[in-house]
């Protein structure tokens, strides 16, 4: 079965080609069926492969399809890596991806045929690229997928490109990703020069042969790539703007899958990161800082999708914290649970936006619980999961990361728990403002309120169930010894890190759990108590204003990076227009002027011409005379000096 792994990315690619090429011919229902069907097919194949990989003693396989690049000693095969880590990601991508495709068929129903097909072809292309990313058996294939998802992200953020702001958001995402990609690319070149190979097996095998300095440089560059793709400080500002895309896109690309590519990449190359402690510290600190910063911004956002976007950034920060402290299983676990509950929340938000006729401001919602029962219940489940209240999935994964952080450095833990408090607070602020209290929109909106069709609520329910039970895959040892299925499953790939619980004393582990649960509950009840009756509707003042304006980071970037670049560009335009063009036009004008003067020689007087001719011949004779025959004729080399008479 592992030999058939190429089917997994091939199916979405086929869907992309079909929908993309025949978008004018296919009917909308057929487009939707192709788009969702191929992803479902990929999911089924992934499940079959998973059935094989699941067994104890499965040996990671590299399935080589063909030689991709062969230059000198460097050989890069087009090969797929089939092991526990990639299969887990396959399941997440195709499983959640299928649900979101299904949801999209209803959500995008107002689009006309070709646009609808364009949407699905982009979405299929995205799934294909993402699968390539997680399946690649070397960094080049990974990088192809990496760029592919970036492209699809750009295309889908700018799906409604008629709106100039959306187009700008797409460009912003693409350019910020490009900065990170450059780091990734340099890291790959570095690896080629140091190891002479980019395939995972060889690079990881030779990793210990290079110095720590080199390894730190490589891993820091890889991490730069991850900060771009996974929206970490300093390159995170594109993700909230990426909410310009359709909501299912936000759910799939900007919450569940693409933004976790950085985490996948680091978990995959954990061998390298283990050898560079400095980078690990950087990863942990950046992750923690991002988690805290984004959570604080989310407190004051009023756009339902923006809150979720900052929440995503914050949760990604958690995952990087996990990677930084060596809890690779925990980070991947959080990727999985996050994919469930964040996709659920985004799709729930999409359902709300759908019902509200495009309205995204939560201050104009309220009391939607009655009109949207299915959405509100699933959304609530998602909120509980992300807040980290047991026994929902978010609790287990977040707890695993926090315990590992505590062992590494208690300060990480304190900040992490505080962020968890903020997370619970802003999520329930969102829930309470949107679904509780009274309706605050216009009467027409109230009249229009309706529960979404089944194609939208079924994915919600499936994801809600996953968000509730997903955590049981990784029960900490302190609760039930030896019940952490995911750690056992991923062990062969990410290494059997000594589980945090085994190092923590039994009591301390319970204390940590107690503290984080307590924090989550405080955040939850505080927010519900504060916002369910009296949501904050006015403009924030004081510190709240700073948060509402996202710490003015965008303004800061604009002033420090965008403005100087603009000025430089203006200077270059000036330089080009005046100096470069001046030289070019000057040469042209000189030639014109010169030829105008030379034209006077052409008088039309035959005598004049003959005179010039004679003068020319005379000059040639004189030159010949004074150079003793070594002048013109010698230079021409054709005329022999003097034929010797017979």
């Amino acid at each position, binding site marked *: 079965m592992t030999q058939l792994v190429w089917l997994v990315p091939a199916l979405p690619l086929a869907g992309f080609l079909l929908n993309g090429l025949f978008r004018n011919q296919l009917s909308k229902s057929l487009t939707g069926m192709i788009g969702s069907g191929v992803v479902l097919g990929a999911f089924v194949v992934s499940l079959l492969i998973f059935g094989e990989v699941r067994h104890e003693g499965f040996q990671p396989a590299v399935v080589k399809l063909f030689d991709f690049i062969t230059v000198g000693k460097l050989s890069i095969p087009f090969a797929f890596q089939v092991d526990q880590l990639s299969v887990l990601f396959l399941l997440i991508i195709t499983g959640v991806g299928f649900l979101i495709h299904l949801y999209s068929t209803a959500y995008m129903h107002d689009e006309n045929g070709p646009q609808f097909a364009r949407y699905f072809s982009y979405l299929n292309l995205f799934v294909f690229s993402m699968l390539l990313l997680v399946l690649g058996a070397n960094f080049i294939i990974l990088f192809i997928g990496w760029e592919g998802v970036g492209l699809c992200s750009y295309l889908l953020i700018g799906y409604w490109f008629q709106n100039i702001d959306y187009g700008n958001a797409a460009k912003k995402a693409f350019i910020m990703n490009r900065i990170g990609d450059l780091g990734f690319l340099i890291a790959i070149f570095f690896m080629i020069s140091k190891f002479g190979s980019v395939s995972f097996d060889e690079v990881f095998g030779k990793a210990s042969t290079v110095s720590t300095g080199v390894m730190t440089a490589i891993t820091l560059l890889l991490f730069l790539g991850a900060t771009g793709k996974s929206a970490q400080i300093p390159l995170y500002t594109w993700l909230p703007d990426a909410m310009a895309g359709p909501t299912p896109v936000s759910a799939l690309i900007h919450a569940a899958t693409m933004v976790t590519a950085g985490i996948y990449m680091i978990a995959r190359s954990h061998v390298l990161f283990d050898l560079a402690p400095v980078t690990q510290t950087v990863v942990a600190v950046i992750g923690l800082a991002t988690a805290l910063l984004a959570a604080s911004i989310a407190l004051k956002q009023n756009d339902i999708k923006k809150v979720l976007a900052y929440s995503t950034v914050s949760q990604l920060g958690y995952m990087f914290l996990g990677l930084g402290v060596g809890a690779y299983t925990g980070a991947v676990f959080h990727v999985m649970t996050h994919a469930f509950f964040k996709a659920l929340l985004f799709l729930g938000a999409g359902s709300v936006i759908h019902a509200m006729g495009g309205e995204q401001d939560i201050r104009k919602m309220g009391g939607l619980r009655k009109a949207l029962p299915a959405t509100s219940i699933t959304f609530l489940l998602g909120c509980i999961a992300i807040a980290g209240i047991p026994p929902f999935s978010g609790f287990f994964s977040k707890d695993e990361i926090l315990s590992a952080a505590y062992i590494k450095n208690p300060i990480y833990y304190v900040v992490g728990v505080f962020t968890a408090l903020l997370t619970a607070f802003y999520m329930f602020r969102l829930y309470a403002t949107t679904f509780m209290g009274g309706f605050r929109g216009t009467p027409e909106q109230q009249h229009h309120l309706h529960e979404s069709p089944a194609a939208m609520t079924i994915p919600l329910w499936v994801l809600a169930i996953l968000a509730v039970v997903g955590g049981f895959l990784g029960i900490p040892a302190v609760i039930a010894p030896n019940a952490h299925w995911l750690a056992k499953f991923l062990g062969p790939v990410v290494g059997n890190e000594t589980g945090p619980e085994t190092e923590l004393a039994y009591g301390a582990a319970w204390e940590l759990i107690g503290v984080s649960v307590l924090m989550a509950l405080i955040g939850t009840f505080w927010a519900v108590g504060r916002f369910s009756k009296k949501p904050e509707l006015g403009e924030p003042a004081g510190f709240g204003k700073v948060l509402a304006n996202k710490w003015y980071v965008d303004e800061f970037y604009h002033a420090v990076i965008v403005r100087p670049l603009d000025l430089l560009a203006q200077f270059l335009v000036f330089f080009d227009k005046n100096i470069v063009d001046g030289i070019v036009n000057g040469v042209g004008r000189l030639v014109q002027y010169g030829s105008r003067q030379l034209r006077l020689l*052409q*008088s*039309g*007087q*035959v*005598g004049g011409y*003959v*005179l010039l001719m*004679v003068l020319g011949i005379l000059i040639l004779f004189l030159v010949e005379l004074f150079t003793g025959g070594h002048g013109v004729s010698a230079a021409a080399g054709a005329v022999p000096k003097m034929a010797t*008479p*017979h």
Partner: protein
Amino acid sequence: MPINYYIFLSVALFCIGVAGVLTRRNAIIIFMCIELMLNAVNLLLVAFSKMHYHALSATTPNAGIDGQLFVFFIMVVAAAEVSVGLAIIVMMYRNTHSIDVNFLNRLKH
């Protein structure tokens, strides 16, 4: 007779021809000057041919014959040129009622 005399005469004839072409405006006179130049060259060719014949006839048969041949070629070309050139002059006179070459300055257009 030394070869120098022939050369001086030939150069003098050629220079007269050049000067005539440059200074005169009458097309027929210009034409005659051109003929003068051609014949100056012919004279030189014959002279050199003769010189070579005297110097080398003991060892080489037909020495200097090529110079003589060349002269005949030039004469033939000159004859052809005269026929064309005179025809042009006749046409020019018919069109402009003049054989002044400065009258023909339309080459610049």
